[in-house]
């Protein structure tokens, strides 16, 4: 990143985009609950990154800088959506057509795929019902596998606050998911392309 900052090196910037576009796309999609807006915000994130390259401080982690940009764009977008909903008195984010963007396993049977879609949609809605501050922690910890200390660094809050937000998020998620998914078998863990194994979760 410092090469991009100092020399405006487009080749290095291209490599940065290639390395980080998928995690950023996932973050934005999970934060907004919409793959299309997630893709748009991913591109906005890299545009913003290039615009703000001179603000980057090499002493800090590049990934922290990038996660912050992406999250701030997500917060801005969520605020815009909220204002729009208030104006039109509709709930855009929970429109049923977005459920069709789910991607269950292609090898499963049609009835299993349908069940996965339904259960995935239930989880998606439960996550989207979380307030932004809790949702960000859940997405970064659970889906992007960032350590709690790193999340504190990204969000610029104490680690204890991250823990309490995560605990509150788990309480709310349990409240939302338990009645709907209780008794169903546990799903296979998400494949995490960042190559961070999920063994840290206590089973």
């Amino acid at each position, binding site marked *: 990143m410092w090469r991009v900052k100092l020399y405006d090196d487009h080749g290095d910037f291209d490599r940065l985009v290639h390395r980080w576009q998928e995690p950023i796309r996932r973050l934005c999609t999970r934060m907004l609950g919409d793959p299309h807006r997630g893709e748009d915000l991913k591109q906005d994130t890299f545009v913003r990154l290039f615009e703000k390259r001179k603000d980057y401080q090499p002493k800090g982690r590049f990934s922290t800088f990038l996660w912050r940009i992406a999250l701030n764009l997500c917060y801005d977008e969520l605020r815009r959506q909220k204002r729009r909903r208030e104006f039109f008195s509709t709930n855009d984010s929970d429109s049923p057509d977005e459920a069709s963007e789910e991607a269950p396993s292609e090898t499963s049977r049609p009835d299993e795929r349908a069940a*996965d879609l339904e259960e995935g949609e239930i*989880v998606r809605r439960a996550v989207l019902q979380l307030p932004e501050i809790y949702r960000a922690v859940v997405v970064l910890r659970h889906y992007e596998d960032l350590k709690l200390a790193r999340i504190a660094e990204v969000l610029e809050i104490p680690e204890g606050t991250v823990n309490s937000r995560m605990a509150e998020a788990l309480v709310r998620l349990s409240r939302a998911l338990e009645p709907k998914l209780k008794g169903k078998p546990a799903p296979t863990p*998400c494949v995490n392309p960042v190559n961070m194994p999920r063994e840290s979760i206590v089973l």
Partner: protein
Amino acid sequence: MNHPKPEEWVPYLYGETTGSMRQEFKTHLQDCPACRQEIETWKRSMHQLDRWKLPRAARMSAETRMPFFRWAAATMIVLMAGMVIGRATAPKVDAERLKAAIAPEIHRQVSAEVAQLARDEAAREASLTLASGRRYTDQIAQQLYVVLKKDVDTVALNADAGLRHTAAQLFQLADYHPGQDPGVPNQ
């Protein structure tokens, strides 16, 4: 260990506690049904979160590729502009004067090259002719040798026949007696 606060369970749930703390949490879970039930619920919720799967990223879209094409197009435009500006600002050349200046030198070089080519060609022709003449001479000599040998053999055969005939006549002459019928041999 007292009941841990909810936030204290989070590092344990995500495997971020140290060995001793982890053991304490485990022991507490074994001894405390209320905490065990709560933590089991959280674990189930954490597993349920994995049901939300995202679609795979689409292949590089046209929009993503556009910056590369834009940069390529910009480079081409800059290069072409440079060429046009270079041609426009380059000093004019007096073609006639330049021609007069370089014509003698070019003429001299061309003449020298033509002469050299002619010499090379003549030498090549001469060597080909010599080789051809040598082959022809050898062929003629061989034919002459055959003819002469044939003639010499003929002469030798004729001479041999003549000598035999002469020898026979000499014997006949030696046996000859006057008054003898030449047709009756001497007894």
